């Protein structure tokens, strides 16, 4: 057992340093493309670390959103940057350009970073080695929450208000992107038969996975965000293989789907207020079904929103107005 513990420690150390190394590559590699790829790998490694830290819900979210979708966003932006910028690649570090003053401008922040890092290290190490946080409160109220996965309970019941605002943040990001991005070129690709086949095969599976994650989220790792992210990934895949939304759906129907999550949240919150007298107080008996409804609609909205974020430019219906 000693050996196993040691092995685990070595594994942790390797993971930790691997993470730092990938972060370094992502930030300071000469080739921007390599940076982005490093960042995606960074996200995957991060997901493994989440598992190591017994945070499978976070791991799922990280893999799907942190590494997957964020990575896709970066890659898409990188692709769009190429024609627009004069020196898209590796413009950040140019050895010839560095004068002594620039050297100083690098060393000074580096020293400050070291100082901050050491201060924070001391602060973290000063924390007591054991702390329960809110574990006991969560556990004792879990039965009343309507779900048995504590993370889902926190997300959708105990701190559901945060989650409502968070969904609004996501929607807001899309509004902002649409507001800004009306002239940003959309991605054009010739999918080719392989990608086409792949997407036809993969998208149904992804939808199924999404539904599974949603369902299982009540008692095991998973939930609306993870499910939504998978759905979003399916959407991204469709976009990449050249699928387009039926024009009739680009207007109000699309907007309705995008807002459905927030609207459902608000409606349920108001209903609970009418029934129990308190905003977002789910009656324990109905909590589970309410949360499921909420998550289902939210998943759909999150998925579509993420896919729309990936596309970047607003649908023509918005654009022409």
């Amino acid at each position, binding site marked *: 057992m000693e050996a196993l513990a040691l092995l685990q420690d070595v594994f942790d150390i390797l993971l930790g340093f691997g993470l730092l190394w990938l972060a370094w590559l992502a930030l300071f590699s000469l080739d921007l493309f390599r940076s982005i790829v490093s960042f995606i790998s960074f996200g995957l490694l991060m997901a493994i670390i989440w598992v190591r830290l017994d945070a499978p819900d976070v791991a799922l979210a990280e893999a799907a959103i942190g590494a997957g979708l964020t990575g896709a966003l970066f890659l898409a932006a990188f692709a769009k940057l190429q024609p627009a910028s004069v020196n898209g690649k590796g413009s950040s570090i140019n050895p010839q350009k560095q004068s002594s003053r620039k050297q100083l401008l690098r060393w000074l922040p580096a020293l400050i970073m070291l100082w901050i890092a050491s201060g924070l290290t001391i602060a973290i190490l000063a924390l007591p080695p054991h702390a329960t946080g809110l574990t006991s409160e969560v556990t004792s109220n879990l039965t009343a929450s309507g779900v048995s996965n504590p993370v889902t309970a926190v997300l959708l019941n105990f*701190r559901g208000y945060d989650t409502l605002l968070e969904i609004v943040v996501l929607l807001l990001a899309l509004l902002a992107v649409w507001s800004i991005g009306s002239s940003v070129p959309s991605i054009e690709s010739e999918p080719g038969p392989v990608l086409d086949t792949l997407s036809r095969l993969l998208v149904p599976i992804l939808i199924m996975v999404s539904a599974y994650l949603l369902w299982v989220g009540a008692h095991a790792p998973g939930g609306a965000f993870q499910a939504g992210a998978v759905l979003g990934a399916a959407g991204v895949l469709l976009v990449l293989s050249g699928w387009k939304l039926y024009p009739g759906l680009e207007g109000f129907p699309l907007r309705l789907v995008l807002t459905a999550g927030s609207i459902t949240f608000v409606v349920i*919150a108001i209903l609970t207020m009418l029934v129990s007298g308190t*905003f977002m107080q789910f009656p324990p008996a109905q909590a589970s079904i309410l949360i499921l409804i909420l998550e289902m609609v939210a998943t759909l909205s999150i998925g579509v929103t993420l896919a729309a974020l990936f596309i970047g430019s607003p649908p023509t219906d*918005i654009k022409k107005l």
Partner: protein
Amino acid sequence: MGITFIDFPWAIALILLPLTGGLSCFLWPSVSKILGLVTVIGVMLSATGLGWLVIDKGVYHYLVGGWGAPLGIELYVDGLSLLMLMVTALVALGVSIYSIHYFELSYQRRFWPLWLFLLTALNALFLSADIFNLYVTLELMGLAAVALATLTGSHDAFTAAMRYLLATLLGSLAFLFGVVLLYHSFGSLDIAVLSERFESNITAWAAFGLISAGLVLKTALFPMHFWLPPAHANAPAPVSAVLSALVVKASFYILLRLWLEIFSQLDTDVDILFGFLGSIAIIWGSLQALRQTRIKLLVAYSTVAQVGYLFLAFPLAEKVGVTAWSAAVYLILSHALAKSAMFLAAGNLLRFGGHDRIADLDRVAQRLPITVAAFALAGVSIMGLPPSGGFISKWLLLQSALVQSQWGLVGVMLIGGVLAAAYIFKVLGRAFTQAPLPHEPGVVPATMEWAALLLAGGAILLGFFASEILAIIEIGSPFGAGEVKL
């Protein structure tokens, strides 16, 4: 349903109304103007209702989801947050009225949902008693603000908004880091619970440092102000108004709240540092404002200076807590009204002349009298001249400083006032003269002029109701009951 008027959950309405309003504006963009206006009026009414409730019954608590701290999220309204909510509603009303005719149709569709979400974030922020919830509202506010700041679509606007975005994201992250440390040190996210459990240790210090740094960056205290002037100057006028009047204040509000409830237990000299930086901000911001040739940049730098005044309260509060803090809160209120009026007026001048170069204003005093009046009245408050809200806060600040013989701060305040007069009259002086190249004016709708005047008038009126407002500030004694009062 046994809900009487007084029991109506006004606080929840303050969050849900703009939220649903924003969603509706997105869903039905063709009627967004009406939806937006109705929403803002609703928010105004809710804020009034909440105000009535709080003034009548004292501090207001709400357990979202019925869980209560530390497990759930609580809403908390005392005099301080109530006033923030009310001034938010008031500025929102003015800005919304202004925006009806400011934006073209295609921009109306973009503006209203973003703006109502921003309003949601502001209301939620002022209501929240939970530090992680505050983080979420901060992010919501920051992203909405950045998106709104790009609405002019100019190159400068995008560059400025990009800086703003980076600054606000960095600020939020530092804040979140602090929240993480606080949570893991004291096992709660609720401010009241944290306040009880707080003890001074190295982790608490680090949390304090991170949170202060993040919020100071977001509040644009010198020398972290670099992002503010371009972002505020290049945004559309109503957006500049909201950014300067409310968004900057929101992060200051959190800083103030956490300082009062939690970090005052640390034995720190940071208050002196804040006072020092605030002093530099006042002088530097005013001098920069004086140097500007464009009105909007001038007004934006004036915000940098006025933010400096807010931080003077920290060193002053050590001995005369209530007076100094009241002064800061009063300044927040009057500056919110005055600065929004000023930006709206600047927007009118921009629309009128097609530019906002101060030297070429060309007799606007004759041709846009209401706008110039709004600018002037707002200027009176900014300069701290009586009768205005600005005067009251300056009076209280000076009083606090003189009681403690803080001569340096006294000098800074006086010089700041004189410099403010200099930059404001730099604009007003040109309003009477004829420009070298007279030009054909653009049309400025009456609502845009009156909206500015309404807000400026509010800033002046604040000068007459100091007793009442100072009494509201002390509901729930956010500044501590045992403190010395002058």
